[in-house]
């Protein structure tokens, strides 16, 4: 062992990780994304949706809230009586469907992403805590989770919404408050699995700090399951938003959301199907693109997959 002299350097950046300098992480990420067919498709679709949403004001769209009582229930342009001015038709108050879908995406996508991010953060933190600490704390936290799961979600949300009031921010909080429990359960189960693996034991034998144990060893290895759940969850959350908006909480006119539009068209489904179908298609496309992207992301983050 004469050849190995342990170096006790004097520099102070003791924690600087020994990461090999990667040429460019972003470029590598984008190139890998482009190479995957489903990842590319999902990313492009989502990009299209986001661009349309953010740039809605720049697009030559009709005013989404302006009513044209003479042009009620106008069908899409490719049907009889369709007009080019209203490519996807109009709703029961003569408002342009295309403009409403694009403007509605703002609140729907916003609610979906924000509520999932918020509930994921709360849920993962609590789940990891419960899984790592165990004992009475685990018992108490998981009983709280069970209790929340036992209360009908819609009822719970209505009660919270009653206190919190209507609007975008209260809506996100209300959804997150009921939604975090699924992340808690999954994060806890994954932590229980991962913390028994030998590489965690090896790190503990080396007395690796618990913050490092968590960030380096546990979180990256529980991430795949969470990514999958989160991507599926975004769709559910957008639908929850629509239910709440429909019941009079959450987003209220004149603000637009896909949920509202779905609810509006419900009565005319037999006669004017486009009123609820197109917001539904928009919702499906959004969720689909996020799922494709999430699927790809999970594989990308796993070094075992080429």
């Amino acid at each position, binding site marked *: *062992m*004469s*050849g*190995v002299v*342990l*170096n*006790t*350097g*004097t*520099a*102070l*950046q*003791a*924690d*600087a*990780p*020994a*990461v*090999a300098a990667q040429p460019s992480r972003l470029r590598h990420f984008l190139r890998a994304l482009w190479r995957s067919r489903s990842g590319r498709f999902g990313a492009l679709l989502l990009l299209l949706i986001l661009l349309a949403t953010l740039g809605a004001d720049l697009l030559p769209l009709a005013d989404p809230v302006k009513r044209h009582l003479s042009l009620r229930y106008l069908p899409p342009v490719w049907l009889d009586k369709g007009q080019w001015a209203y490519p996807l038709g109009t709703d029961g108050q003569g408002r342009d469907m295309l403009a409403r879908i694009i403007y509605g995406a703002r609140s729907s996508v916003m609610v979906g992403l924000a509520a999932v991010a918020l509930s994921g953060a709360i849920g993962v933190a609590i789940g990891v805590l419960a899984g790592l600490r165990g004992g009475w704390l685990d018992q108490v936290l998981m009983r709280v989770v069970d209790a929340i799961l036992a209360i009908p979600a819609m009822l719970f949300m209505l009660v919270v919404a009653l206190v919190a009031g209507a609007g975008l921010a209260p809506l996100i909080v209300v959804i997150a408050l009921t939604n975090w429990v699924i992340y808690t359960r999954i994060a806890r189960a994954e932590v229980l699995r991962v913390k028994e*693996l*030998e*590489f965690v*034991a*090896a*790190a*503990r*034998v*080396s*007395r*690796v*700090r618990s913050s*490092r144990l968590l960030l*380096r*060893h546990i979180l*990256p*290895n529980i991430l795949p399951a969470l990514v999958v759940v989160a991507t599926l969850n975004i769709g559910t959350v957008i639908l929850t938003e629509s239910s709440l908006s429909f019941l009079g909480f959450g987003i209220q006119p004149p603000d637009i959301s896909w949920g509202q539009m779905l609810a509006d068209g419900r009565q005319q489904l037999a006669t004017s199907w486009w009123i609820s179908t197109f917001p539904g298609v928009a919702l499906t496309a959004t969720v689909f693109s996020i799922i494709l992207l999430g699927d790809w992301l999970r594989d990308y*983050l*796993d*070094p*075992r997959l*080429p």
Partner: protein
Amino acid sequence: MTAAPSLADAANAPSLAVLQTRRADTVLRYRNAGVTLQPLDGGEPLRLVRGVDLEVQRSQVVALVGESGSGKTLTALSVLGLLPGNARFSADEALLNGRDLRQLGKAEWRRLRGADVGMVFQEPLSSLNPVLTIGDQIEEVLYYKRQLTRRQRRAEAIDLLARMGLPRPAQLLQDYPFQLSGGMRQRVMLAIAMAGEPALLIADEPTTALDNTVQAQVLELMVRTAEQSDVGVLLITHDLSVVAQVADQVHVMRLGEMVESAPVQQLFARPQAAYTRQLLALAPRIPAVVRQPLAEAGLPAPQAAQQAPAILQLDAVSKYYQQPRAWHFKAHKHLALDQVSFSLQRGRTLGLVGESGSGKSSLARIIAGLAQADGGQLRFEGADLSDPAVRAGASIQMVFQDPYASLNPRMRIGQLITEPLAEQPGWTAAQLRAQAARLLEMVGLPASALDRFAHELSGGQRQRVCIARALSVKPQLLVCDEPVSALDVSVQAEILALLQRLKKDLQLSMVFIAHGLESVYAISDDIVVLEKGRVVEAGPRDQIFGAPRHAYTRSLLDAMLDIDPARSRFKARPAAPAGAALARVA
């Protein structure tokens, strides 16, 4: 090698004499068989197995020997029609029980499995369905393969279990797999495989997951069953001592090709291929001299008065595991370690020996600080390890059994190795990287491995990485919990040699745990024998192996299989031909 000379060679084996009085028919014949895999991403097709000639007679045990990646399991799966979907089987001739395997439809394969060929897998727990009773799983085969009535099925299942030497077979039918021990599960697996009255039994590493004592029983059962039921056995294994004990004919495979085929005695006595010779030389063994009973008289007195100070001292260490019972507040206490005391001198290696459940691993975890003792005291260089400050300063590191699970799949090798160091102040990233390269060199890996991920390395390379990680903080005591049992024979030898060298170079002290007594013998200075959490015997290596005093130690040693076909305990064989003894000296 063609079938004709091998038959002639085997003619003096008694099993063949028996065979000739019965139906001397061939159960399985492969000529020039191969398996080609078409990669899913559309790359070049891989010829994983090629040019395999194989012949199994009734009542004959044919062993397929090779290391991981040799294609032995793929060959066996091709007999069952269980190759992966993107694999293609080809052969000039492939006959199972007179049926051409090359042109079977799905339904024909289904009829064939279980009825013509039965299979026993390595891991008896995962190959039994946990939610069905033993009875359900045996009777299922009897129903589908032999269309017996309910009453017949039950009687037959009881009979099968009794033939497998299982106690109270009638009650056993109602038991679930988790209620049985590993050896019992493997007997049940054998009963299921035999339930369809197959002509060929394929056993894929059937005893690798079992303790030595249980392994001997299961092997004996398998050999006896094959002889009584007139079944041919295709045995897949990497363990040459198992081959020596039970096989009649041996095929050695390497990288998808058959390098040698010979009757067992000829193979061990006069190995032709260089690879076979290498395998035989690397197989761990305990010199016969050590195991002579005469050692009892002539052995020098154990060097009790060793001057070296103890680096690790255990004093009456106990450990309980509690299982809280539903609806009871009284917990069920299971005693994993009972008053364990021993001491380890600096610079020596202590081998911990015992069957599974004897508490070896619990002890390793307690020494490494992964678990707390419930009683007794551990002293490291005289200081009490229960004191957190002492524990934090104690330079104890651990190497684990499974090199696949003990490396974080999301970190690069360089980061992994120096992680313990990064916890200490005063290291820059560049210094850590340089140190990682030095550590890799120490364990015989190139610096190019630094930026790899664990999955890009082989099992042996991973275990080297684990050792490098443990050594990064210059430990004084290294705890190795079954460090070689997941590895191939030749890799085992390499890792053991590496540990020996490092121990000498770095003046390491070691606690070495293994259920393979041969590897314990190869590396240990002292031995502690554990039985059900209790130390039954302790002393210098040669004393324990040469003159065991406790009955349990003797039973462990007796369960070891001799790597000499002439001394098979399961098969009567004529004396070894000249030359066999010569080969054994190696």
